[in-house]
């Protein structure tokens, strides 16, 4: 048991409750399978796009666009900060110098 001021966290109890929930969900899943046993034919498993069969290799969600709504929400970050991660060493060294100046100002303010 971890206690923090007025709150506490009982990890063993919480784990037991979570495992119990997982068990119930699994039992429900097993029970539902009795009545809905999917047995699709091989034709039904094929995927088509514009009348052409799409191979499994081509059905991958683009990893970069996976969370495109979040990318839109943080548009300024992805517009200005991400391109600076360009792999160009001189840019990275400039960042280090910028970091040095920022930390120096912060330390001087803190220790003044």
């Amino acid at each position, binding site marked *: *048991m*971890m206690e*923090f001021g007025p709150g506490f966290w009982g*990890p063993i109890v919480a784990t037991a409750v979570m495992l119990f929930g997982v068990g119930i969900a699994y039992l429900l899943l097993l029970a539902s399978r009795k009545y809905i046993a999917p047995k699709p034919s091989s034709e039904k498993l094929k995927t088509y796009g514009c009348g052409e069969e799409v191979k499994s290799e081509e059905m991958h969600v683009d990893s970069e666009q996976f*969370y495109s709504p979040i990318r839109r929400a943080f548009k300024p970050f992805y517009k200005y900060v991400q391109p600076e991660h360009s*792999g160009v060493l001189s840019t*990275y060294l400039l960042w280090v110098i910028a*970091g040095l100046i920022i930390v120096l100002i912060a*330390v001087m303010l803190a*220790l003044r």
Partner: protein
Amino acid sequence: MIAHAPILAIVVPLFAGFLTPVVSIVAKRFGVERARDWFVMGAAILMLLIVASMAPAVWRGEVLVYKLGGWSPPWGIVLAVDGLNLLVALIIASVVSLIAIYSVVYMERDSGLEKYYTLLMLVTAGCMGVTLTGDVFNLFVFFEIMSISSYALVAFRRNWDSVEAGIKYMIIGSLGTSFILLSITLMYGLVGSLNIADLAGKIEAIKATQPLPMIVPLMLTLFVVGFGIKIAMVPLHAWLPDAYQAAPSAVSALLSGATTTVGVYAMLRVSYMLFGALAIGTMFIILGLVTMVVGGLMALTQRDLKRLLAYSSISQMGYILLGVGFGTAMGIQGGLFHLLNNAIYKVLLFMCAGAIVYRVGTSNLDELGGLGKNMPITATLFIVGALAISGVPPFNGFASKWTIYVAGMEAGQPICTAIAVVMSALTLAYFLKAINSMFLGQQPEHLREVREAPLPMLFPMLVLAVFCVVLGILPSLGMDLVRPAQGAVMNQLGYIGSVMGAG
């Protein structure tokens, strides 16, 4: 405690590193090449036992002071082991032992393995030296041993990407170590000592004078930036994604689990112990938040698993900085607990990435899919690591993150805490993307015959996953490990008294 344990913890990996090529030649001559791997594994486990033997005395509250050559501080070099560096030494020794086991199979397709194991042991010796020394110039020397060996390990495979990443890491890292050396030089010029305890006492005396010499903030800044490069604190993080992606996964695991931990240790030792600088906590909080957010948002859009893990490492460093930046007992406990947990699940995740690369040959998320059927154990272990790093209960990441959140609320920083909670959700989001891309969905034709990772690779991953669960279900075990370290961070006078009293 094993006699001479502090120095043996450094000497064992150092000598093992130089003996590895000799053992390799002898083993080849007798047709038992695996003897080299067993030798390195044995050295790593011996080092772990040596470090563990110091634990009972340190946990009783002692500061173990080992005088090299019998010279008393501040004239001679001392090794000083308190709760903080014992915790870090235990993390390093455990991580290196598991990586040595993992490397036996993971690295078997590479050539020049005697060089790999030599460098692995030299990084370990460097890490141990930085951690255990009580002398700031020694700290620099061991930091250089650790760093230079790391540059070589990143470029180990000698393809275009790894050499480019190694050179970038070397140039930026060298700039960082130059800052550290410059700071040590300025410090020696100011107070005329190199012993950490002696320096702390003398700097404290100088700080009592008014006005504070301009050189003191400059020294602290150079240290923070130098070590900040090693822990990839934003905006000093740029070398890390390239290095972690290009290095063999065992090396990425070593860098994320051992060298980064050492960087955090060095920064804490210098800023809190040497400068007693609880005042710069606000700076750590701000840099921690920026590091957390930038790392998290960059991880979200990565196509490569190892690059995603690299940005995730940066993000997790933000939590550690945030926790220690609060400056309260609970904040520092949370930060150090997260340091321990981060070493566990980050090494686990890089090992899982290595298992996938070993079997499939790529870590590009767009070329993977449906591997959960072929590699069920790796998939399960990756999911455990992913849930742990995302702070999902009942895994260890939840316990340390929650401690940091509570510390944040108690320190009157609800906005910082809210940002940390949101970033934790974002961590879960990008790990769900990785799980979906690798283990779920349609399986490409060329992955139909993929098999599960070999047992010697699965074993260390399994051990780490067990730790993720055990430290989550029984967080008091982790807190008991971390509490002496937190006590050491906050007890500057006790450290000074123990080391200087040893004269």
